[in-house]
């Protein structure tokens, strides 16, 4: 059986290649919304922060750090997705105008 580390490295390698291929196809027109979208997605660290804070024997330090981390990550998630959508709504073709 491969160890956790090995599986993790496989996942990392595959995800990186998928990422490189997918991102390469993104139109340069949308590079700004792309960056705010990936920003929101990288706020997935909220999962780590929840795990830290909800640990049964979390110390006060862990709770405080986890609290700040969740706040920061949720700020990113909320503002990241909303502003990406706000930007994308503005991209219109001629015939769709008004």
């Amino acid at each position, binding site marked *: 059986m491969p160890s956790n580390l090995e599986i993790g490295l496989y996942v990392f390698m595959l995800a990186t290649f998928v990422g490189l291929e997918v991102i390469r196809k993104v139109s340069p027109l949308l590079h700004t919304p792309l960056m705010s979208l990936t920003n929101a997605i990288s706020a997935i*660290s909220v999962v780590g922060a929840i795990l830290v*804070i909800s640990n049964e024997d979390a110390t006060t330090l862990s709770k405080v750090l986890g609290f700040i981390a969740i*706040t920061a990550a*949720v700020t990113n998630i909320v503002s990241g997705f909303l502003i990406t959508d706000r930007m994308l709504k503005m991209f219109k073709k001629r015939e769709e105008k008004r």
Partner: protein
Amino acid sequence: MDSLVSYIYIISGALFILSLKWMNSPVSARRGVFAGEAGMLLAIGGTLIGHHHNWEWILAAFFIGSAIGVPIAYIMPMTAVPQRTAMSHACGALAAALVGTAEFYQRQPRADSELSGFVMVALIIETLLGFLTVTGSLMAMGKLQEILPSRPMTYKNQNLINAVLFTIAILLGVRLIMVPTDTVLFPIFAGLSLVFGVLLLLPIGGADMPTVIALLNSYAGLSACAMGFVLNNHLLVIAGALDGSSGLILSIIMCKAMNRSFTNVLFGAFGQIQASVTRTEQRAYRSASAEEAAAVLEAASSVIIVPGYGLAVAQAQHKIRELFDSLMKRGIDVKFAIHPVAGRMPGHMNVLLAEADIPYDRLVEMDDINGEFPQCDVALVIGANDVTNPAARSDKTSPIYGMPILDVDRARTVMVIKRSMSPGFAGIDNDLYYMDKTLMLFGDAKAFVGEIVKELPARVGA
């Protein structure tokens, strides 16, 4: 229960990949955002299943985060998007770095070798990248918001000092990996990472921002990815790797568009060196009024507008839309030529022009539009400078030699809206301004375009 959470995470990971895939076209992009949101909701929901401790802390943090995030998303003007992006790199990195710190102190005291070997390596990478991205992004934000001077700040032996500091941080990290019980070293290590983030951004100037923002994006992602290894959570690894590769690709595109290498961007302090080049002679140029400019535009059958950062500064995008509409109504073909590094972040110009309701099929990338300049009657440059400088093609001694540029000089007539004759960010004189077919239009971009628009209808009645 655990396997349920695993399945939820797998779906969530797939949604993130789809989300980025759908960004390949403006038609499907909004679906991409929806997929991303769904993936995130599943990830959070899945994590909350089976974790029943300290709910009040989690709820409070969610509430505060949303209360900050919603106004940011709706109030932030589009011209401030680069600053917001830098700020959210800082937030994301902060979350990763703090989780790493919490994990370190939480797990370390048990000394049952749970926090050893590769997990500790991942934790050190997570916190190093996390903390340096926090301060680095805050510096970038300060420079973009012009709270800090946007010119590069350099001092003697800068690179040497940075290298020494970084080496010390790495050595401390290695020591912590080998002896995790040396907890006293951790705050020093974290502090050095924070300081290094500041030092790394000091010599970065405004024109380098697109590359650096993309690079910080990549770091924030890799930090989250390393966290995935610490927590043995594959969803974190996937999402972090996607973000990391996205930032990497964008920074490579930006570097290519400036014909520079990563190291040159990070350690070159481009603007500063060039600013010291003094111009020796006064050269002759032609200037024109708004009325004359309107006459030239009206006589044209095709116009290419070249926007740059100056457009964002002057907030001229809505006035430019009026000009666009007015010219299109007269049957004049108007396109926009977008250089990859125009503005302060990748894609900056596209978002501004889209905000002003200019259809995106009129925004044309550099490689696609360069062939059209020779057939174009008027090229109107608004707030762009170095990306139009023909010296990049012809003058081997020029610091920007080799940089891909928009071939504005090949248009039949060139008009440049500019505040004054002062050189652009790189401090390099632009030969474009002294050509016989070039008309300089001096003034604020927004005001000048407004005047041109006013002149146009008057001429229709005449």
